[in-house]
């Protein structure tokens, strides 16, 4: 089943066309890694699927739902780990989690929150205000939120950015747990090494053209673009 299906997606900002007739599909239980140079439109594509941008033309479906018409329903099954941490500086790590999950209509128990925080290695900072977290810890907190929300489709925008080696390992653990549970993961990245451990398919977006390559080619190629 196609968890993500984009057909002839185009997007322009002012007179600059970022995406031109890009089509992509990601199956349930699959991790798709999207490479490309800066400004290629990777984040824009992700943000279209996350219902943050409306495409200039083309259509997309998330879990069979029309991304434009049913976007409220689409938002129920997706989660985006983007460039922002979506944290409130004056709330503690635990309170930030309670808020982010609670507002979606679910109140996780203390034990569930603790388990998720421990899983990403920041359990001992649960009472610390998030203004004191480093960028890497904030990213880990985003992973913890994703682990609690368990979306059917996870979008990772530069998923490994700011993470140390152990953090990268945790991110990959998280991705694996999602795909094994049948969720789809679409990630943009520049890190070929860790991506090779989790990606099932790889695409290179360059000058508005999406070219699919094998994971092996991604690892061995001198340059992807």
């Amino acid at each position, binding site marked *: 089943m196609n968890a993500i299906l984009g057909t002839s997606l185009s997007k322009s900002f002012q007179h600059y066309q970022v995406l031109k007739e890009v089509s992509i599909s990601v199956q349930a239980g699959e991790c798709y890694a999207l490479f490309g140079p800066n400004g290629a439109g990777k984040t824009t594509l992700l943000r279209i699927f996350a219902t943050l941008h409306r495409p200039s033309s083309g259509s997309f479906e998330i879990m069979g739902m029309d991304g434009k018409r049913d976007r409220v329903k689409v938002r129920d099954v997706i989660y985006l780990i983007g460039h922002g941490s979506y944290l*409130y500086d004056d*709330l503690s790590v635990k309170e930030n989690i309670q*808020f982010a999950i609670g*507002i979606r209509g679910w109140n996780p128990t203390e034990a569930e929150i603790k388990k998720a925080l421990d899983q990403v290695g920041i359990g001992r900072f649960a009472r610390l205000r998030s203004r004191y977290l480093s960028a890497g810890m904030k990213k880990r907190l985003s992973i913890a939120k994703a682990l609690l929300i368990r979306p059917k489709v996870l979008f990772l925008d530069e998923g490994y950015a700011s993470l140390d080696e152990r953090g990268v390992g945790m991110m990959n653990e998280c991705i694996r747990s999602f795909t094994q549970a049948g969720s789809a993961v679409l990630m943009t990245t520049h890190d070929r090494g860790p991506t090779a451990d989790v990606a099932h398919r790889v695409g290179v977006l360059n000058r508005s053209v999406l070219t699919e390559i094998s994971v092996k080619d991604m690892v061995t190629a001198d340059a992807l673009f």
Partner: protein
Amino acid sequence: MHFFRVIRWIAWKDLLSEYRNRENISSMFFFALNVILIFSFSFSLDSETIKEIMPGIIWVAFGFTAIIGLGKSFLIEVNNDCMEYFQTLPIPKGAIYLGKFLGNLLFMLTVEIVLFPLFVLFFNLDMIDQFLQLLLISTVATIGLSALGTLFSALTVQIRAREVMFPILLLPLSVPIFIGAVEATRGVLNADAFSLYSHWIELLVVFDVIFVIVSFWIFEFILDY
């Protein structure tokens, strides 16, 4: 029921953040205190004349305090891209508006209640007996101000000239609120019968209802694309 839970979560988050950093509430309070001090040292009037100009002084203080407090209401959502998180949530965006509105209303009422004794002290006014009537007028007028202020804060938060745009949008539309509030306050301070100024309170209630409903409806479009 989830709709009301969203309102509660948003208001909880705003109140807790404000309780911890006290940025907004302290700037509102000290600005209002300044206004009271300046007016109290500018006029040395007898008690009858002071009752005539007092409603104006009270609502100048409350009005400008509202501009300071409400204008910053959505800044907390811009930091760390929290606004983006709201956009991707599968919840009615109007509930986010009502949560922010409720938080703002509580901030402003807190500041106003703290300021009342200062008006009594600096202007040697006997307002203690009329406190409940004044609280009613303040609440009804502040509901309208918060409704508009929350909406315009969301509208202007992403633009560079927000400090200029916010009062330009808020003040003209707040005129009926200020007129109603000043007239009703004058009635209370003159110890008029309630029936003589109740129509001003009714007018404020009508504007409250209009402003809350229209803002609630418009907010959906501000946050969604």
